[in-house]
C-alpha cells in the first residue's frame, strides 16, 4: 500500500460497546469533536483506564481500542 493511501486508512475501535470505524491517526479529542461531544461534560476511559481531559489531544486511537465515553444522567 502506498503512503498516500494510508492517510485515509480507517481502523476499527469499540465506542461505547459498538464497533466504529475511524480514520487512522484520530486522537480522542478529534473523535469527540467529530461526534459533537462536549468534552467538559464528559469523561473518557480507554481500555479500562481513565484518560484525563488534558491528555485527549495526545492519545491517538489504535485498532481494537475500547473506548467508553460517559456523561451525567439522572440517578439516585
Amino acid at each position, binding site marked *: 500500500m502506498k503512503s498516500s493511501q494510508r492517510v485515509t486508512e480507517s481502523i476499527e475501535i469499540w465506542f461505547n460497546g459498538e464497533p466504529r470505524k475511524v480514520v487512522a491517526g484520530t486522537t480522542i479529542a478529534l473523535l469527540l469533536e467529530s461526534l459533537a461531544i462536549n468534552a467538559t461534560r464528559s469523561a473518557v476511559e480507554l481500555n479500562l483506564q481513565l484518560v484525563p481531559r488534558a491528555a485527549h489531544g495526545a492519545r491517538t486511537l489504535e485498532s481494537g481500542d475500547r473506548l467508553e465515553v460517559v456523561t*451525567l444522567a439522572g440517578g439516585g
Partner: protein
Amino acid sequence: METAVQRSTKSLGDEALVIGHHRFTSRLIVGTGKYASYALMAEALALSGTQCVTVAVRRERLFDSEGRNLLDALDTSRYTLLPNTAGCFTADDAVRVARLGREILLGIENPGADWVKLEVLADKKTLLPDPVATLEATRRLVDEKFQVLCYTTDDPVIARRLKEAGAASVMPAGSPIGSGQGVLNPNNIRICLEYLKEDDPDYPVIVDAGVGTASDVTIAMELGVDGVLLNTGIAHAADPLGMARAMKAALEAGRLAYLSGRIPRRLYATASSPEEGVITPAKPR
C-alpha cells in the same frame, strides 16, 4: 427567609449536615432520576430545599432525538453533585465509574468532584448491596483520596467495617431501593448509630433508599440519623412537587423532634389535666 423550624433547630445548636469537606443546611439529599421531565425535576429539587443531588454516570447517547443532557436542566452552581456508582456489580467497575464521575465533575468545576456515593450491588432483582465488594471498593477509593459515602445494608457490623475502612459516611438502606417500604428495621438503624457514633458523635449517618412517603423520612430522622437520601419517593409520587414539599417538612419535623427528645413510651395513660379540683361525681363509683 428563615422558617420557624430553622430558627428552632438553630437554637438547639443544629447548624448543618457535615460530610467530609461538605456542609449543607438542608439534611435532605435528593436523586435526579426517574422524573417525567427535566423541568419537573428542577422544580421538585428546588421545592425540596436540598443543596446536594445525586447523579449517575452513563454513556453518551449519540442519536437521542431529545438531545438534552441532564446538565442542561440542572443548575450546577446551586447544587453540590454527588456522583453514584449505580449499576455496578463489582468493586472493579465501581472504582472505574467513580473515577469517571470525578473526571466529569472536575470538567464542570463542581465541588462534588472529591466524593462519591458508592453502590456495589449484588443482583438486579433485589438491588441489595454486596457488602464484601462494597468494603473492597471503599478501601480502594479511600486510597485514591475519594470521600466515600457508602450505600449499604442496615447491618451494624458491616457499617462499622465500612467506617473503619475510611468511609466519610455510612448510608444504610431503610428498605430496598425504590421499594417505598420505609425504615423496615429501626432497631438495626439504632445499633448502626450506636456503633458509628460511639466516641464520634458527629460521624454522619444517612438513611439511603426505601423512603415511600413523608412519614418515612420523619421516622428516620427521629432515630437520630443525620440526613436522608431519596429519589423515587418524590420522582414517582402522583404530584412530585407536592411530595417534594412534604419531604422537606417531614425532615425538619423529624430532626426537630429528635433534638427535642421524645417522651418515653408507657403502657398506661397519664392524665394531661390536673387530677385535683375535679367536681364531686353525681354518683360515687
